[in-house]
């Protein structure tokens, strides 16, 4: 915007700063907390001046929580690994199932297609607590409780509809003529799906996968009920910091920093690709 006057530019700068401060403040504050002891965190009034310490991170990664006069074992690293396993596997599975399904819903009008698509979406409407109790009972009986497979299965309730509906929209935006053109050139429909539809919907699939990953990563309630200590993700594992001798704010902050880092970095990395033009000017409207 070269035509903006200096005043406009200043005002825009101020507005952007306000927005950035508003959204970044919690992140920055947590980051600062993670380098402080409980005493400096809880001092009143709060201050930005403190002696930074790495104790919180050391405690998390070492698995030993040194409280007031007692030592507590925490399995934070194990939790982090669980989060990675659960999120990566459930998103991979959902992509594997959801992308072809989204393509089918986008391209073919078959009997009940809208109903099926809507039913899948409706899984997102149900309050998780409503389904959890019966689900927990069934899982106990068929031996899926406290297994990765069981959890990954339940995570599909969160990620599959998301991926299905987002990716379907992207497939619908691709002109069917582009695929027909590929098939008329002599390629099978599956080749057209692989070489035309998939690459063109690529940014959309990446966006949906990323969103689904964040949703899976942040899930709390399913894992709380269906997993015990050794399968718990970080979201549930963080409960361990609420100890008998008080809430370990410093460690919680450090745990949050560590557990948010992957999603944050992923989002920052993917952002460039997500913003990339989706329709590359092939079809003249």
């Amino acid at each position, binding site marked *: 915007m070269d035509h903006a006057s200096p005043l406009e530019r200043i005002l825009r700068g101020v507005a952007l700063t306000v927005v950035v401060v508003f959204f970044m403040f919690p992140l920055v504050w947590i980051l600062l907390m993670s380098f402080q002891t409980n005493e400096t965190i809880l001092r009143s009034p709060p201050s930005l001046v403190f002696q930074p310490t790495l104790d919180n991170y050391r405690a998390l990664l070492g698995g030993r929580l040194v409280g007031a006069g007692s030592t507590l074992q925490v399995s934070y690293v194990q939790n982090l690994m669980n989060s990675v396993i659960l999120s990566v596997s459930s998103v991979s599975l959902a992509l594997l199932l959801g992308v072809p399904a989204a393509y089918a819903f986008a391209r073919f009008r078959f009997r009940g297609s809208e109903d099926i698509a809507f039913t899948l979406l409706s899984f997102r409407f149900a309050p998780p607590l409503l389904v959890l109790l019966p689900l927990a009972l069934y899982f106990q009986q068929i031996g899926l409780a406290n297994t990765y497979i069981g959890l990954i299965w339940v995570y599909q309730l969160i990620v599959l509809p998301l991926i299905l509906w987002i990716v379907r929209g992207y497939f619908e935006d691709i*002109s069917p*003529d*582009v695929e*027909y*053109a*590929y*098939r*008329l*050139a*002599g*390629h*099978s*429909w599956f*080749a057209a799906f692989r070489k*035309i539809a998939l*690459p*063109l919907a690529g940014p959309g699939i990446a966006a949906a996968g990323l969103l689904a990953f964040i949703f899976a990563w942040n899930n709390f309630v399913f894992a709380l009920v269906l997993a015990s200590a050794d399968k718990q993700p970080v979201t549930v594992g963080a409960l361990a910091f609420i100890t008998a001798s008080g809430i370990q704010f410093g460690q919680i902050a450090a745990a949050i920093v560590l557990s948010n880092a992957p999603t944050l970095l992923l989002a920052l990395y993917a952002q460039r690709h997500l913003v990339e033009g989706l*329709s*590359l*000017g*092939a*079809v*003249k*409207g």
Partner: protein
Amino acid sequence: MAGIDLDNVTKRFKGTAALDGVSLTVPEGETLALFGPSGSGKTVLLRVIAGVVQPDAGRVRLGGRDVTEEPPEDRGVGMAFQNFALFPHMSAFDNIAAPLTARRDAPSVLKAGVERVAKLLKIDHVLGQAPRQLSNGQKQRTALARAMAGQPKVLLLDDPLRNVDAKLRFEMRLELPRLLAREGVTAIYVTQDYREAMALGKRIAVLFEGRIAQIATPDEIYHAPATLAIAKLFGDPAINVLDVTPERDAHGPFARLSDRRAPLDPGLAHAVGRACVLGVRPEAIRFVDAEAPGAVPVTVEAETPLNEKTVTLAVTRRGRELLISRPAGAPGPATGPAHVAVDSVHALLFDRETGARIAPEPPGGAIRGAAA
């Protein structure tokens, strides 16, 4: 053996028929222009041939082989889409190479094949570029090159010149027939532009509301259109349409135009007394002196000089509007009262009810009826 043979093809969308019993044969190596107003079913017909749309009834034969049930990739058809439908994530080279990669040609064969059509269509200098970097004309040529690269027996062109500018359209209109002839393909060329249809097709099929209204040479379509609607679509400025009821006297059948006797073709005696419409091409009316036989008084309202002709809008005493075309430079009034003579003997006569043309009976011959 016919290149393309459609037998009673019908396709309905939500109850309305997009194609209603279309039968059509294109001999091998011929280019047929498929002409019709928008919504007449041209694109659907092309897609049925390509296999992209399944017909509800009827058969599609290509080169004598029934392909009605075959998927598009097995039909050996090349198609250029109206919206180009280029693969946006591939270079122009890879776009054009698509029919060749499907055959798993060796890289050298592939390269030679792409360069051959690219040179033919004069886009060999942009092969490395992505579709979004191409101009509209280059996109259109790339789409055409892709359709032709596989040297298909049948080529379907869906209004390929619609989205390109007038200059390029004119060039391509001249180039395309030569190109198609050189490739020796059987082609169907869809267009909404009657000039394009006349320039490109050896024959023109006129599609109206999902039915073939007429298949004939460009000349026949212009001089003996099957219906009034076709007569209105071919010709610019459009044909003049006058309601008449033919009468008859000792000299033969005639129509009354502004109370003057306008003689009709003697073979039209059987149309006497029927409610008809007289179609007079703008070039069949000329300005004459008031004393000339059959002169009709008119008032000239407006004049549009075009490059090669001048079009005049005149109004008769009864308020009927006439478009009159004369070669540029020919004398004629620009405004005010004038007189015109109508070449009614060679005018076209249509039934007012059905719009079908009433053909003159050949002297002493059997009734030919409305041209079918």
